[in-house]
């Protein structure tokens, strides 16, 4: 069966085409969609893409960051204002994958992939969705719960720039420097008077999609960032997670090592 490729100059037009065709998939960098095409996935009848410049635009201004969903990991690494995201982008594939893999594509990457999305979840990102209805905003956390339902086109991702040194990330792999996640952890740790206030912790590969560690966040509230202060997170680190057995690690192993790596990350002793 042949595939039709449709290219649109504007994202809104691409979103319209996507919503009208159940056999259509949006192609950004190709690392996910082309895999399926190569496997002769019969569900893909149309590839929709867009050359809209806004899709690959990065805007950083007065604390607000907007990443076009077509921005690649290499694009993130080339942006000095996004230095806190460089360890995350570097954790996605090798150099050739980073040239193609996009912020938007990562939102749809099945577990155990999607490390960049875990970082965006810790940053409390909002997605801008394009569609036949126009543009609308959806919190990333809401989106992840229903990302497999319906054709949506993410045009960009928006979040507040984290305070200096407040954002941390680690990825646990069996192969270095590039390997698939056993798990990944991203944390944003705002503090007031030396105590954590409003922490956000997100895990990759600890469920079907990246997930927040709300119990661990609550355990950190008002605590100091030292061994005694973070101690309550140990017992609740894996609460709310639903890891699976796969070729990389068992669910049991993922749960077992999660508190260890969370502790290391919180204490600034993680080796990524």
């Amino acid at each position, binding site marked *: 069966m*042949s595939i039709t490729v449709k290219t649109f100059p504007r994202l809104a037009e691409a979103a319209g085409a996507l919503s009208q065709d159940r056999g259509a998939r949006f192609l950004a960098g190709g690392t996910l969609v082309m895999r399926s095409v190569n496997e002769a996935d019969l569900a893909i009848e149309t590839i929709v*893409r867009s050359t809209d410049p806004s899709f690959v635009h990065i805007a950083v201004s007065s604390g607000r960051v907007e990443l076009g969903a077509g921005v690649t990991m*290499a694009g993130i690494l080339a942006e000095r204002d996004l230095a806190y995201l460089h360890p995350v982008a570097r954790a996605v*594939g090798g150099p*050739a*994958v980073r*040239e*193609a893999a996009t912020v938007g594509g990562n939102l749809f990457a099945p577990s155990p992939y999607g490390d960049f999305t875990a970082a965006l979840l810790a940053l409390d990102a909002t997605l801008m969705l394009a569609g036949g209805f126009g543009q609308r905003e959806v919190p990333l956390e809401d989106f992840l719960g229903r990302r497999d339902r319906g054709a949506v086109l993410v045009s960009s991702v928006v979040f507040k720039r984290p305070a200096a040194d407040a954002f941390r990330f680690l990825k646990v792999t069996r192969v270095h420097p*590039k390997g698939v996640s056993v798990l990944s952890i991203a944390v944003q740790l705002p503090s007031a008077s030396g105590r954590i206030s409003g922490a956000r912790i997100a895990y990759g590969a600890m469920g079907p999609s990246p997930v927040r560690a709300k119990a661990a966040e609550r355990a950190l509230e008002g605590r100091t960032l030292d061994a005694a202060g973070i101690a309550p997170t140990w017992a609740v680190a894996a609460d709310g997670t639903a890891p699976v057995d796969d070729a990389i690690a068992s669910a049991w192993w993922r749960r077992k090592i999660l508190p260890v790596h969370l502790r290391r990350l919180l204490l600034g002793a993680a080796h990524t």
Partner: protein
Amino acid sequence: MKTPIQFRLNGEEVATFVESGANLLDTLRESVGDLSVKGGCWQGTCGTCTVLMDGSPRLSCVTLAETCAGRSIETVAGLRRGADLHPLQSAFMERFAAQCGYCTPGMLMAAKALLDKNPNPTRENVVDAICGNICRCTGYEPIIDAVLDAARSDNRRRA
């Protein structure tokens, strides 16, 4: 449905027709006839199909051919400098950096992408540059040594 595309391949203009939805790897091998590019996984995982697009490494198996229109593509077939092998090719031979040879085209292009941007790489830079390319024979060490040798010899040649 066939779609016409035109791009530069190793400095030469190429015009061909591709099946709609075809990847760059199959296009290079089957439509253009450049068999220097190898296919391994067609999943974007093994790195053996690595080519350079506008100077940056790309996995040709997961690159939609139609996105290459107007771009510059480099493959191992274009590595030679006239009658001479590229310093990377010479270093791979001297260091026995190829055994079965299947990963070699991708390794060479990943290494070229590095040396074109960073003529004086550290060992860590080399490891990162080839970390997306799988080799099941060499254990990687001869490849890393060869890339470092090539950088040194190319720098000597330029000096």
